[in-house]
């Protein structure tokens, strides 16, 4: 379970302060599929980044399974990113010269699992429908395929939480549908999925929609 209390993030630009988050409170239960929506600059990505320890809050507390992640030491933060959460971003962030297989293997290597990871990697790739492309270089894949590799990479360490920031932002409708289906499948398998999107259609596929504006949650509703 993820709990966010009084979360504030302030950016100082010149002499003015900009609050990307202003006292955000929310809780995300295990197995939820949460879509965080809002206009650009509403703070939705900032919220996701803080939950993923990619950013630090100015104030407030984020607890994951009862632990305050802001108090993690660097090694614990790395372990959290490696094992507890899996990231999926709009820009994929694959290693372009690595093969699909190698890209998916990276989190395992960083987790110290340097033995035979073939089964785990192939399972992850099969999950996203790319088992047949494991030997290809990441840069040769289409955008949709690269995003699916990114998802495979995110799930290969079997994290409990999938954090997806505009996962369909760079994709056409067909590929978006594919990615959303994969995320829905992961949700169905019991993963907690937190997705940032500005696309209402994608958001509607989540089980809960949190709408943000000016750094605050303005609406939090369950979908049917």
């Amino acid at each position, binding site marked *: 379970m993820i709990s966010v209390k009084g979360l504030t993030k302030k950016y100082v630009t010149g002499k003015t302060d900009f609050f990307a988050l202003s006292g955000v409170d929310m809780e995300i239960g295990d197995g939820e599929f949460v879509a965080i929506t809002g206009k650009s600059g509403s703070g939705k990505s900032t919220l996701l980044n803080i939950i993923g320890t990619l950013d630090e809050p100015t104030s407030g507390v984020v607890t994951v399974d009862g632990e305050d992640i802001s108090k993690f030491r*660097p090694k614990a933060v790395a372990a959290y990113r*490696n094992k507890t959460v899996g990231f999926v971003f709009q820009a994929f*962030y694959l*290693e372009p010269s690595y093969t699909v297989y*190698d890209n998916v293997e*990276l989190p395992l290597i960083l*987790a110290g699992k340097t033995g035979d990871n073939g089964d785990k990697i192939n399972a992850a790739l099969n999950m996203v429908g790319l088992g047949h492309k494991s030997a290809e270089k990441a840069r040769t894949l289409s955008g949709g395929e690269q995003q699916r590799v990114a998802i495979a990479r995110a799930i290969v360490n079997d994290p409990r939480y999938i954090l997806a920031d505009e996962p369909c932002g760079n994709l056409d409708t067909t590929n978006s549908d594919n990615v959303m289906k994969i995320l829905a499948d992961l949700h169905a398998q019991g993963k907690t999925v937190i997705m940032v999107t500005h696309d209402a259609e994608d958001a509607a596929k989540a089980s809960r929609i949190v709408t943000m504006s000016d750094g605050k949650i303005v609406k939090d509703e369950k979908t049917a």
Partner: protein
Amino acid sequence: MKKLLKLSLLEASFLKRTLVVIFVIFTAFGAAFLAVISVMLDTPRGMIAGIDASKQYYANLYGGECFALQTENRSADFAERYSACLCYGTLAGTTFDAELRRDDAVFLTDLVTQLGNGDHKLEYRVERHGYFIPRQYASRAQFGLPQNAERGIWLCSEIASALGVQSRDEIFLGDRRLSVLGVYERGGVIHSYAEDEPVLPSAWFYVVDNAENAVFDTLYLAYTSTRDIFDVWQRADENLRLSDILTQWHDDIALVQTYYGYLAILLGALILFLLYALFALLYRSRKAQMCRFALLGATGTTATFIYAAIALGVILCATVLASAFSVVLSKFLLRVCTRLFNVTYPYRFRVWLPFALLGGCVLVVGITFVWLHKRMSRLPIAQEVRHE
């Protein structure tokens, strides 16, 4: 992790980006090593036969070893006649071992003692001055006084007269038999010499009377065992004064010293700058990748290790290549500089330049590593990822 490193190193785009930098580094290191190796490995060897006041200066300057055997005679007549100074210095690339030094001193002492022959009571003093020749070159020594002294000796005409010998004769000093290679007049004017000998002795010492004001028709201030360098030092002129030569020589040395000083500083600065630039470039090109690794759970230490391994690997390769490159070019530089300035390399740069370069590199690498680790441990990942 090994695989990760291998993959990182093989990344084609990275190599493309750094190829130019590697070349620049290569060239810079080549130039630096060129200078260093030139002065360390290919410095002319030879002798300084000079006046008393200058021998120590030049010997020290060139890393030579200077011995002075001076007679201190209470007899004004003999003092004037034989207040000879004999000195020779060796330049880098050769040295005498302790035994030879002692033998030299004894030998020369014997010589002057015999000449004194009881009429004049002589006191001798052997002065030893500091030498800076790296020990590893000792085994390469190709000349030493005993070996060359076997060829013979040049004698002042008055000494030759006293002994009743002339060129090509043989004299016995103790149990040693030496040919008289030539005889020179007091003041340095050549009186006679064996025809198969150069005008000045190719033996490794030379006695100069009143050298400060000596006049030579041909003067070798110093020379080496190699003929090409030997020629460089030859100053042929009528009525050539040793003092004038030394003055000119000193000016030349000062000039080259200055050039080398500037060159060393420039090269050092250039190398440090390029090293830093390389790190900066690598950092920029790798920063996004490190952020991606961090997203996947790489620790700051892991990221730093990967990054530093790549950077140091590149620098190491460039250094090795540059070293090999510089060995070849150093020969060329030596020739050019020797011909251009007509002097050898200032010794002091041989000592501190390599250490300065090495120290500088170590310092830069160390500081950069620490800096990297701090940066890698605190990368503003979200920001960097968004920039990418």
